[in-house]
């Protein structure tokens, strides 16, 4: 068989698909009743009504994103019987990298015992990290450059929330998720075509200030925040009004674009799994898109908005609850900090 023909055949038949998912939550948690003790003007009922969340998990001081990602990966190996030596590419996605250098993915390659022939990159992304990471994995697999990609999406938003910020503390939770994407030599596409979008004009509306090289945290910043541990990783600021109207504006056209690109109709989708921002926003989007309630999966009550880990956690729980099974067509869509948005259709 000539080289070109072989190449063409491989390209035709190899498609990426999601083989397994696991996730890890820190033990410590923050309940609505604890939040009410801290903020006496709130009631448990109010918090639940506003967010659809009862509990969020909070990492211990010093336990960072890559630690949660590591735990999630170890769980993936044991829960699904995966041999780490078969992994040939690692994508670590987080907004809380260990260092500016080296890449956290390099540290994780060693810690997880992945082969040294394994490629490793960081994707420092937030709410849309899972779908963007999945698109990179698909590109690597379908272009024949990797066979088995480990995508770790892990975030610790609690560490960048000021303790007096009730609104953000209500919404966000820490978590790590591990997803194995492998090549499937079959006709059916496991991970479909993506729709992407970016609008950096909204960067200021959701930002972790004082967290990098621009306007870096200085002595004055630490002094100002010394009562709350210095806010040493920076501080998340969100204009919820703008984020809400941004999501209302971009998500419906994105869903239509995903369906068009994958030559599917809304009726062909068995389950819709969006970035788990908060139940109020998701319910409004569901009604706007006229998606039936039983085809729209939400999982936030026990975990909150876990940023880049939210979609794999929801997908795991959807499979566990029997809402999605082998052969199901699931539409994944994420949106948030950036502004950034992306989505695709996966066949499980």
């Amino acid at each position, binding site marked *: 068989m000539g080289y070109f023909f072989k190449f063409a055949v491989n390209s035709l038949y190899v498609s990426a698909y999601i083989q397994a998912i696991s996730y890890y939550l820190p033990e410590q948690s923050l309940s609505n009743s604890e939040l009410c003790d801290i903020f006496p003007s709130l009631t448990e009922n109010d918090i639940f009504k506003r967010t659809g969340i009862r509990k969020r998990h909070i990492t211990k001081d010093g336990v960072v994103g890559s630690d949660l990602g590591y735990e999630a990966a170890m769980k993936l190996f044991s829960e699904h019987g995966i041999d780490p030596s078969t992994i040939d590419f690692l994508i670590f996605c987080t907004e809380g990298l260990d260092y500016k250098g080296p890449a956290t993915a390099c540290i994780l390659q060693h810690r997880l015992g992945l082969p040294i022939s394994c490629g490793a990159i960081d994707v420092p992304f937030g709410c849309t990290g899972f779908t963007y990471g999945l698109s990179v994995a698909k590109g690597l697999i379908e272009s024949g450059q990797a066979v088995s990609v480990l995508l770790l999406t892990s975030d610790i938003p609690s560490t960048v929330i000021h303790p007096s910020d009730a*609104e953000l503390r209500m919404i966000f939770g820490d978590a790590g998720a591990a997803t194995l994407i492998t090549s499937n030599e079959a006709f059916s596409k496991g991970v479909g075509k993506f729709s992407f979008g970016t609008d950096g004009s909204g960067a200021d509306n959701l930002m972790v200030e004082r967290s990098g090289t621009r306007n870096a945290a200085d002595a004055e910043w630490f002094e100002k925040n010394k009562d709350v541990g210095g806010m040493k990783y920076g501080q998340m600021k969100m204009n919820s009004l703008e984020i*809400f109207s941004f999501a209302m504006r971009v998500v419906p056209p994105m869903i239509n674009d995903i369906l068009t690109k994958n030559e599917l109709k809304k009726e062909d989708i068995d389950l819709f799994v969006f970035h788990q921002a908060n139940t*109020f*926003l998701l319910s409004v989007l569901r*009604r*706007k898109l006229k998606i039936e309630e039983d085809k729209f999966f939400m999982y936030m009550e026990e975990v909150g908005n876990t940023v880049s880990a939210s979609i794999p956690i929801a997908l795991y729980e959807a499979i566990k609850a029997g809402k999605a099974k082998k052969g199901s067509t699931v539409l994944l869509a994420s949106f948030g900090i950036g502004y950034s948005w992306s989505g695709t259709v996966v066949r499980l």
Partner: protein
Amino acid sequence: MDITTFISQIENEIEELTPGSLTPETEFTSLKEWSSMHVLILIALIDTEYNVTITGADLQQCKSVNDLFNVVKSRV
């Protein structure tokens, strides 16, 4: 679209409001227990009923029910 319907839609959607309590002149911030959550409910309501997406900047320019009505009406 007419303002009477607009007002009753808002009153129906926001459970803290007593039907008949809103007038075109009512200023949102003068309402007891008005919160950021109600603003989000308003955005969602206007989007669903009129297919108009209101932004935070739009809302900052709207003091009264009538102001908001005019913004929505100009974009329907």
